[in-house]
């Protein structure tokens, strides 16, 4: 009896699955690469209820912040749901799968390609003036030639260094190496701390690649160009810090900040959030800490990140959603937002405001933003980035040959494809 019933159940399962799969089949027509143009937004005050998702502190602060928008547009209601950064990517992905997306959502810059490729995002209409944004920031919204959403706030990476160990910040590659050596002669255990591979190391490395003049893909994002001589030059330079003993290969997690404030590490590369962390750790020691833009190779460059705001194509209140998004990108609103949550504005005009222009640390970030670049917003970027992370680890910890590393990265990236 058991045997029979088992076979029956098995057959039923197969039948159901087969039926479901029979309905499957990929559309052979068209696909990515073609640019879409957005329908225009109607003028006038917004109406309807706009559902907004925002992560972290932004999510917390946004609900109160939108009171000014509601004043301008009395017929509109904006409901903000704060979402934790932890697993926010999963939440948006499942929402898209289940058809439960909001009208507007904050989206990390490196997720744009993936979510735009699903067709869930609405292309940016002419209502938005793209010239006002930092170029690198605007590029993060470019997926295969069409722009989706807008950059909301940005972050970029600069050099944090100790003025008591390295009085002058370096302006070029040779200068960076010299500064590290000098700092070690002055008593530091390590001249600089750079991430030697593992999650997120690509964000520290890519600035060097861009400084060397390397391009990651071709113009229309369909092919990778990761094994160019410029790339190899950047890899060689990055590796030199580890092979020369200037940077640690096995710094325990959590040790960077205490060691830096104690003078054991003379410099490191990071974004705006470290200012607060270092202050909390040792406010008095901050007088020996200074920031500088990253040294130039063939040119200046850094990494730009942050978050974008995107409107979903399923939205029933498209006009109101875009009006809201446009309001958030006005320079004066961006300055207000900075005052509320300390997010760096993505609109360059906002940086002229005294609230930002007068801050000593922000000055450096503002300058760096002008030459900051973003990785290509392709759907497969996260996967390619993890390949770079793994190969960087081999480069820095196992002393692999830079040319071989570049070739491996290119091969694996090609196997993954750009997704466009």
């Amino acid at each position: 009896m058991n045997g029979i019933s088992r076979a029956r159940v098995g057959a039923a399962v197969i039948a159901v699955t087969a039926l479901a799969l029979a309905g499957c089949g990929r559309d052979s027509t068209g696909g990515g690469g073609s640019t879409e143009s957005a329908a225009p937004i109607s003028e006038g005050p917004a109406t309807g209820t706009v559902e907004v998702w925002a992560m972290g502190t932004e999510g917390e602060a946004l609900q109160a912040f939108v009171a000014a928008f509601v004043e301008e547009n009395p017929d509109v209601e904006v409901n903000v749901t704060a979402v934790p950064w932890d697993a926010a990517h999963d939440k948006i992905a499942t929402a898209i799968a289940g058809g439960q997306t909001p009208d507007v959502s904050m989206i990390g810059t490196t997720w744009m390609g993936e979510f735009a490729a699903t067709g869930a995002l609405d292309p940016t209409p002419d209502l938005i003036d793209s010239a006002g944004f930092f170029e690198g920031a605007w590029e993060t919204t470019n997926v295969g030639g069409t722009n989706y959403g807008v950059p909301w706030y940005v972050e970029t990476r600069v050099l944090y260094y100790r003025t008591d160990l390295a009085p002058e910040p370096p302006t070029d590659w040779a200068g960076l190496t010299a500064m590290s050596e000098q700092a070690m002669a002055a008593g530091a255990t390590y001249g600089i701390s750079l991430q030697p591979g593992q999650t997120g190391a690509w964000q520290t490395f890519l600035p060097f690649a861009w400084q060397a003049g390397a391009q990651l893909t071709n113009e229309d994002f369909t092919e990778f160009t990761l094994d160019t001589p410029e790339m190899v030059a950047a890899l060689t330079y990055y590796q030199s810090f580890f092979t020369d003993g200037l940077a640690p290969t096995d710094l325990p997690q959590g040790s960077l900040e205490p060691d830096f404030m104690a003078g054991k590490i003379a410099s490191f590369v990071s974004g705006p959030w470290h200012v607060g962390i270092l202050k909390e750790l040792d406010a008095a020691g901050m007088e020996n800490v200074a920031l500088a833009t990253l040294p130039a190779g063939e040119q200046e460059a850094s990494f730009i990140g942050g978050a974008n705001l995107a409107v979903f194509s399923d939205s029933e209140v498209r006009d109101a959603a875009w009006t809201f998004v446009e309001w958030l990108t006005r320079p004066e609103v961006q300055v207000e937002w900075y005052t509320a949550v300390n997010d760096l504005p993505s609109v360059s005009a906002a940086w002229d405001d005294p609230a930002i222009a007068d801050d000593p640390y922000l000055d450096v970030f503002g300058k760096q933003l002008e030459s900051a670049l973003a990785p290509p917003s392709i759907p497969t970027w996260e996967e390619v980035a993890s390949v770079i992370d793994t190969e960087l680890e081999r480069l820095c910890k196992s002393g692999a040959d830079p040319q071989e590393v570049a070739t491996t990265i290119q091969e694996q990236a090609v196997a993954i494809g750009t997704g466009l």
Partner: protein
Amino acid sequence: MSATVEPTARPGGQLPPVEPPTDATGGTGRRRTHETGFGEARAHWLAYVVLGVGLTVVTSPFIWMALSSLKSEGEIRQVPPTWIPEAPTLDNFRELFDRLDFPQFFTNSAVVAIAVTIGNLVFCSMLGYVLAKSEFAGKKLLFRLVLGTLMIPGMVTLVPLFVLVANMGLVNTYFGLILPFLAAPFGVFLMRQFFLGIPDELIDAARVDGASEARIFVQVVIPLAKPALATLAILTFLGSWNNFLWPLVVATTEDKYTLPVALALYSTGQNQTDYGLLLAGAVVVVVPVLIVFLILQRYFVQGVAMTGIK
């Protein structure tokens, strides 16, 4: 050397007669003590020491967590970590309760966890009982099916489950938070294994007396199962209380967030973490679990009257 005597079973299950020991030490070579338990006085002391050392090892992170929730952000980040706070402060907790709508999230977590726990206790013990003690067509297949799904990694069913729940209209509802976890294979497996150990004579005797299956279950079997039920209760409650990913995905407005989701919201950032808030949150989240554990833990070891079976 073997001093073990294998008593043979007798009809009725009575204890076999005890044979007198062959020498003063009872054949074990060890001096017998006057202890009525089955340990020796010396062993007790050693056991305490071993357990105590182990205890220090296992509780140190918890102690660090509790102490560090009273520290400033900078002190938490210090390497090597400090233990006693230099300047103890309740600021982390104050900030947590200020920013968090605590009653709302706590209620959500409590409702969901209690519902899931009670549901599991009822449904899993029912199924576990019949899987252990009954014969019926398809029993083996059923057990293997349930056990099999226990072995499937959770992340593979996340998207399909969400699509299913969305199509049922249960997104952002308490039902959506509770229903997927009411039938947990883990509970069935636990109860079945436990019920296997209950002697059939008890159940047969009750049947002979004419009790219905339901009555046997409620009046004979369940009272014997208290340790297993308590274990299942605490494990299910803990799992549901700390569940993060599903409540995050199912809730689309903050009023349905559970406590872990809300805490992650306020403490983890895109590039950095607010450790003070995180640890204060962790302490707050752990207190109800500890309370439930303390209440239930005496049931783990409630004596089961197995020895007087005739």
